[in-house]
């Protein structure tokens, strides 16, 4: 009896250590996997940032694999990744589509004039409806999308050339191979 009563708290303690150890190590509380992987691009009809009289839909983006980048002028990390996007566009010839998210179109156009425009198309997502449909939770986010519009991957945060080579390039390539 005496032996058992010592054993019980020890066992409970060991159990807690294992439970909490796993619980804290395995789960990153900010980990938010994209729900949209493997799904088609949501349907949208939004104005072209560079010509607001023109409407763009998801069909205008399709045809070959591309990067879909969510950006805004109020987002400092977007400024940080702009050069990397430019060199990815120039060196690898990857098509990049932009979603100008919750932004002022005038500021956005000035930003592109000042910094250069590596994007093929931009849509104005002034109210974040497309962003919500994509399950975006902050800018910048970058999706790899297949030629038929299937969402293959999502990168959250700044894209650098290292990120492109390590995670995005291979997915773009395998999507291109399947054409």
């Amino acid at each position, binding site marked *: *009896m005496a032996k058992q009563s010592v054993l019980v708290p020890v066992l409970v303690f060991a159990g807690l250590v294992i439970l909490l150890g796993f619980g804290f190590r395995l789960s990153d*509380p*900010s980990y*938010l*996997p994209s*729900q*949209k992987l493997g799904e088609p691009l949501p349907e949208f009809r939004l104005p072209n940032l560079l010509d607001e009289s023109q409407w763009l839909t998801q069909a205008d983006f399709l045809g070959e694999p591309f990067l879909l980048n969510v950006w805004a002028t109020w987002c400092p990390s977007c400024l940080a990744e702009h050069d990397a996007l430019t060199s990815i566009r120039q060196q690898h010839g990857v098509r990049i589509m932009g979603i100008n*998210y*919750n932004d002022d179109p005038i500021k956005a156009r000035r930003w592109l004039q000042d910094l250069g425009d590596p994007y093929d198309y931009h849509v104005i997502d002034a*109210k*974040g*409806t497309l*962003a*919500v*449909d*994509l*399950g*975006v*939770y*902050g*800018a910048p986010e970058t999706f790899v999308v297949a030629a038929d519009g299937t969402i293959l991957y999502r990168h959250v945060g700044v894209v650098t050339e290292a990120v492109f080579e390590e995670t995005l390039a291979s997915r773009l390539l395998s999507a291109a191979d399947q054409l």
Partner: protein
Amino acid sequence: MNKWMLSFTLLLALPSAATPLSPVEFSDDKLKARYYGLIAELRCPQCLNTNLAGSDAMIAQNLRETVRRLLLEGKSDAEVRAFLFERYGDFILYQPRWTARTYLLWTAPGLLFVFGLWILLRKNRLRQRSPAVLNPAEEARLKRLLDKI
């Protein structure tokens, strides 16, 4: 002095508890109540441990507007939750669904209660089985010890 400090501290807590982020217009009070209920129970995807109501993050503003729009379109609370779940997954729900990953979470309180009950009953039974009566040898030893004092 302490009382003053306490009331001051409580005052500080007031605005954060009741910040009207952006006054939202509803013609219907019932819809308004449902709106505030939903944004209180849905979690902001960008900020950890804040609901949609308590966050000023861009995406929280977008999602509050989304909830409002869906309610005005006549969607039910369940449909609003499903709409957001489709896009943001379990993360957005403060009340986890019943899935293979969460069954332990849901059943743990009940299991622990049953476990505690079992331990209590067992202890009780053990106590009943060994009555507090000394056998002659113990009786003699007790007497010797008492005599020593």
